[in-house]
């Protein structure tokens, strides 16, 4: 039949889209704005000790972390709703569920070794294959699932959600061609860097709590110049957290190098089998069938 359209649903389902990219949740502009605003507020929730005026810091040094935990929780949920608004079909839910389950299972397995969490590895791969939208949602959901499984819903959860969501989002935006030789190394470098940056940011949410009580020269001094607080934080990070973050970053990077290509294939295959964005077209029955 020469009149047959070139693109049939079957062809699309087998992955023959001309572009080859498979954005399971396309980011519309409201979602992009929401993610951007949450990113800015989230960043502020972490770095406020360095930027707020002295009198605010002295008056609210002890409430601010709680305040931001509540605010960030609300914003993260609103952001999830915007990104996913009405466009999750059963198969997307299934793929997100597996990403969340993998994150949660990693948390279960690594319960004994705090910090050595290979969870980001899964989040990064999911974001890489399924696009920034799914990357954000699966990062946030993986952390939530892990927290629900281990009964660890605490004030740290909103901050972790934003961080892990950002990691998944960034993995989807990495400027490297899917399936290329360079992909493995770029993603591995990304895993290493995010492993370190995650710790760098996650310490910040509780660092102001230490206040005057931190070791001399490592604590948050309200009203001190930015450079002094930054130097104090750098010392604090080196002394306490780097020992956990470096092994985590290295572990995730090594996992990406060793298993990355295979896992990318697994996720790409699942995405193809779920036949995302296969257009449903009803055609009038052809001549042959009628006869």
């Amino acid at each position, binding site marked *: 039949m020469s009149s047959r359209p070139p693109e049939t649903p079957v062809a699309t389902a087998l992955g023959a889209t001309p572009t080859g990219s498979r954005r399971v949740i396309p980011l519309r502009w409201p979602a992009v704005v929401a993610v951007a605003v949450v990113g800015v*507020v989230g960043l502020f929730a972490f770095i406020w000790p360095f930027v707020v005026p002295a009198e605010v810091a002295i008056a609210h040094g002890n409430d601010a972390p709680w305040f931001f935990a509540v605010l960030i929780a609300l914003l993260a949920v609103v952001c999830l709703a915007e990104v996913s608004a009405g466009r999750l079909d059963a198969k997307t839910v299934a793929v997100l569920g*597996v990403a969340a389950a993998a994150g949660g299972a990693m948390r279960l397995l690594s319960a004994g070794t705090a910090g050595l969490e290979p969870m980001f590895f899964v989040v990064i791969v999911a974001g890489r294959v399924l696009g920034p939208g799914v990357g954000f949602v699966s990062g946030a*959901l993986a952390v939530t699932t892990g927290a629900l499984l281990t009964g660890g819903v605490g004030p740290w959860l909103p901050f972790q959600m934003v961080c892990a969501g950002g990691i998944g989002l960034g993995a989807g935006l990495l400027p490297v061609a899917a399936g290329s030789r360079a992909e493995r190394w770029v993603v591995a470098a990304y895993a290493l860097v995010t492993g370190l940056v995650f710790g760098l940011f996650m310490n910040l949410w509780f660092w102001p709590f230490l206040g005057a009580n931190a070791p001399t020269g490592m604590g948050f001094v309200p009203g001190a110049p930015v450079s002094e607080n930054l130097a104090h934080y750098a010392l604090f990070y080196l002394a306490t957290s780097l020992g956990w973050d470096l092994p985590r970053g290295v572990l995730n990077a090594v996992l990406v190098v060793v298993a990355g290509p295979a896992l990318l294939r697994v996720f790409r295959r699942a995405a193809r089998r779920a036949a995302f964005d296969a257009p449903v077209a009803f055609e009038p029955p052809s001549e042959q069938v009628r006869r």
Partner: protein
Amino acid sequence: MPLRPRLLHPAAWWLWGLGLATAASRTTNPVVLLLVIGVCIVVVTERRDPATTNPLWGFLAIGAIIIAFRVVMTMLLGNGVHGETVLFTLPRVPLPEWASGIRLGGPVTLESLLYAVYDSLRLAAVLACLGAANALASPRRLLRYLPATLYDVGTAVVVGLTFAPQLVTDARAVRAARTLRGHEGTGARETARLAVPVLETAFERSLGLAASMESRGYGRTVHASTRDRRLASGLALVGLLGVLGGLYGLLDASAGGALGLPLLAVGAALAAASLVVGASRERRSGHRRDRWQWPETVTALAGAVPAVVLVAGSVRGWDGIIVTPAPGLPALPLPVVAAVLLAAVPAWLTPRPREEDR
């Protein structure tokens, strides 16, 4: 009259826990904080959700580690508190020039140690309240009360929660099979080899589930018209921008600091409203639906009272709310103690969880 055994509404327990946590976060009085922790332990012992493996102990352990860590760090490195009472003196280690801000060793004063203990005890008490909430009502029971806008995301979390233990089982099975074939070893390479078959199985199972859900008309219970969705998006964006503007106002006093807080509150309220208006759920019957009756109200109030009393006390500057570290017991304001003890009431005035759920 004994109450019929049932599980309390999870939201009631979480309101109780968050109220008590708010109360604990306002004080450094060690007696009050220990009372808060004690109340948490009593209530959890009496009314624990039988489905959980008591996460309270984990939270208490984290709290204990925080206190111990702070005390050790204070002994070694000192803190910003200067005291008169020197307990003992550690040998001082000379440090190079660039680390001149840091002190290693030296005299250890009682005041600095007490400050470290009081301050970290506050964090430990807040964590105990959250741990108690986790133990009293498993947070996954709260998933049922997600707004309809988040229905799909909630389903993904439920799928994740269901599959995660299976993934662990699968990983064990694959590992056992590999051991039988003589592949031994640990490390990254082995983990990577495990990941592929385990995830393949998970996707297989999950996509099968999705196909069956789709063929049975899953997801038809949530209604979202385009108009509703646009309204929700608009509300969310305006709300988020309001939050952003409010934060900026709080930060920069010259740009209208007085406007900051109201703008922030309105923004947050609008953003929250966007969750409600975005979609509506079809009314349907539920299995073992949680009910909100008077024990739930009592529980929520028992958490709210200490929060209100302690916030009021810290705003008015009562004696014994923020304690200066000094030898001897600090002043103990009676209303605060009464309010914290009131929080233990749900241990008796609520229905017991059913035995057969255990």
